[in-house]
């Protein structure tokens, strides 16, 4: 069930929220677990069975590992291998076989939705228990809720166990958090359905045929993925707030970063920190020789690429960004450029990297990159029309990657809190109605052939 679907917004969410407030406190957690399982089952019950098995295995295996005095390491390795193998099996097995043996038809294996996220969540728990950073959970309900909690189940953020545990026994109703949660949910929903989906439709209607065309395409890639993912994360964090949970931010205006390394400290923060804590630092981190640093970064970034997808373009994407970060750390760290130049340059590099992220077809990648340097063909009529037609979307899209609107809101709130609240509520409800109209419109498919 996607957060931006009708079934979630106009059936699941209102009903689940109302019942949550009506039931006694001591069964709230078990209630959240049940609705989370229902939420996940809505994609397919088979997937739910897999996730239940994984949860049961990890619960008992980690308990056992925690109790061991010797040979903990072997148990750790066993648990890691089983989890990583499960992920790789669903994620890569079919694609690799299919590429190796073109002529044999294999039964397609579909990756259960959210598996990349929940396996990484589990791995962080396993390693934290091994490192004695946290105790193993003895309550199966609590552990299952940690894995299944529906706001973060499908697309993160990847929450660490000790952050979750703290709130598990202590998430009383909090009016301001509740209001804030819905506010975030609406903002996230409109980022997704009004902006990201519009950018996505523009992109699918246009094939680069000039330099300006390619520039617009890469800017739209940046905007689309930002509004898509940050929008989804806003919804996820907002939903968590509604039920009294508070997790760390996953995005921090990444498009304003002054270097690629900074970008990834502000973009999908929970994944970046996961790679930092469980791969980069164990490999030696920053405090090594320059050669070793370059190797470590390469490993981290190639795995990051592979985590995003099984096809070759994600590996190129990871390798491309990894190389830029190596160059930044080894060569550019001592040179100072004006801030605005750094920001624009970073935005350009990141935008170019999305070309690899979005296209698994080599011809498309070359076409876009070639046109980016095509000084013979600066503009084409189609892209001029697209810009004119969507100018408002583009301007709003570019403004909202910065905190300008948020700061204006804060300014007025300081001046007059009551008026601000009234205005803000009206604005958010209007945004919610507008988002509803966009959601319905995508399903509005006039089938008018027979009138011709």
């Amino acid at each position: 069930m996607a957060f931006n679907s009708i079934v979630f917004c106009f059936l699941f969410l209102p009903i689940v929220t109302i019942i949550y407030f009506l039931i006694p406190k001591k069964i709230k957690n078990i209630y959240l677990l049940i609705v989370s399982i229902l939420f996940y089952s809505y994609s397919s019950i088979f997937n739910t069975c897999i996730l239940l098995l994984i949860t049961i295995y990890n619960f008992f295996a980690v308990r056992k590992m925690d109790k061991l005095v010797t040979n903990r390491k072997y148990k750790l390795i066993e648990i890691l291998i089983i989890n990583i193998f499960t992920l790789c099996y669903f994620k890569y097995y079919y694609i690799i076989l299919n590429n190796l043996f073109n002529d044999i038809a294999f039964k397609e294996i579909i990756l259960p939705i959210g598996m990349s996220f929940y396996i990484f969540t589990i791995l962080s728990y396993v390693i934290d228990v091994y490192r004695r950073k946290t105790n193993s959970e003895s309550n199966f309900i609590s552990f299952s809720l940690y894995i299944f909690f529906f706001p973060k189940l499908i697309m993160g953020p990847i929450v660490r166990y000790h952050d979750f545990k703290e709130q598990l026994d202590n998430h009383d109703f909090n009016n301001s958090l509740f209001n804030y949660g819905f506010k975030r949910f609406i903002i996230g929903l409109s980022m997704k359905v009004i902006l990201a989906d519009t950018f996505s439709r523009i992109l699918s209607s246009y094939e680069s045929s000039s330099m300006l065309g390619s520039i617009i395409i890469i800017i739209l890639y940046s905007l689309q993925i930002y509004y898509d993912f940050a929008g989804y994360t806003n919804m996820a964090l907002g939903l968590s707030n509604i039920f009294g949970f508070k997790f760390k931010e996953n995005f921090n205006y990444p498009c304003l970063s002054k270097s690629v390394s900074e970008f990834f400290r502000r973009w999908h923060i929970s994944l970046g920190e996961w790679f930092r804590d469980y791969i980069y630092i164990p490999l030696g981190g920053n405090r090594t020789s320059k050669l070793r640093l370059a190797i470590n970064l390469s490993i981290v970034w190639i795995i990051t690429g592979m985590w995003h997808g099984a096809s070759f373009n994600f590996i190129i994407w990871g390798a491309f960004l990894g190389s830029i970060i190596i160059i930044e750390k080894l060569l550019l760290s001592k040179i100072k450029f004006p801030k605005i130049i750094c920001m624009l340059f970073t935005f350009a590099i990141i935008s170019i990297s999305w070309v690899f992220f979005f296209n698994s077809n080599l011809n498309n990648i070359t076409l876009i990159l070639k046109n980016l340097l095509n000084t013979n063909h600066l503009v084409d009529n189609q892209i001029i029309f697209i810009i004119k037609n969507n100018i408002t979307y583009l301007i709003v899209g570019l403004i909202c990657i910065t905190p300008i609107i948020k700061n204006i809101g804060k300014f007025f709130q300081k001046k007059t809190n009551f008026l601000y609240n009234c205005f803000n509520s009206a604005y958010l409800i209007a945004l919610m109605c507008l988002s509803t109209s966009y959601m319905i419109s995508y399903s509005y498919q006039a089938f008018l052939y027979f009138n011709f």
Partner: protein
Amino acid sequence: MEEKTSFIGWLTLLYLLVIFFINVFSPSLSFSNEENRTLASKPKINFNNAMDGNYFTSYNKYLEDQFWNRNMWKSLKTNFEKEIGLKKIDNIYFGENNRLIEEAVVPNAYFLERRVGNINKFIDNYNELNIDFILIPNKIGIYYNEVGANNIQKDIYHDFVAHFADDLFPINCFDILNNHKNENIFYNTDHHYTSLAARYISESLYDKKDVEYDKYIVNNNFIGTSANKIAYYNKADSIELYIPKEEVSYYLTYNDEEKEYTSIYDDSKQYSYNPYEIFFGGNKSIIDIRTNSENENKLLLIKDSYANSFIPYILSNYREIIIIDPRYYYDDINNLIADKQITDIMFFYNMNTFFEDTSLDDMIENIKA
């Protein structure tokens, strides 16, 4: 958290709940007039479709299709997007004076090659008959400048016509309609041209002068397909008919049925959701019209719905007119041509359908001669 005195959470929850209850209590619809399609009904759950998730996909579709007042929501989005400056939504441009203009269909090389080959085959097959092609431009071919584009449709027309002998295309409809572009030759809300435009085409094709017509207004509140596609209801059209004062008498049959009709107009459709069906009661696979015209020619008219408003003007020119729509007619037309002793064949299409629909190719490829 700075939302202490805010009430947005409760407002939003109320909004979601209200819509939830309206959806639950509003009756299920089986058909959407605006979208002209059957709406999804409630799916039935079983072990297999629950396991693989297909049930939930169908259930989503059902909720979407049965959402309260879908049309109003779509309309809200269209109007909002028009306000923020969009000139084109889906494949429809906003022209001047609320004229809704559908994008031109651009055929690909494969389509063109197949079509040109089939037409050549057809001409060779029936070289003793008189064959004409009438291609009517769409709104985009006449009002292209209102959407700031080049006249792609005219280019497509000229490129296509260049493949054949000149006499295959007896009239250039771009020129005819361009001469009348300030009159009501297209509906604002629909993709069809009007009866007035069809009249101009017929007058030019048959070199008719000084024909007198009676004008009737059939429906003043016509919302056509273009408006329904994007749910933009700013201005309704009126459907006007021009009936020649001196008309031949005729009768007609539909779909090879026995029942005979004495009028090509179906009055029952006058105030229906799609009043354009006043012509022949909508699209039919085959229509046979017999007249008492002095002219003994027998016409086979292969057409789309643009011909519907054209036929009233040509009744006096033929003794018999057989009209087929290849999208619904699947028999071998060779038999039809022989049995009915056809003397003239006319292909009558609007450009967008002509360059998109492949049933014409299927029909020609099915001829066993």
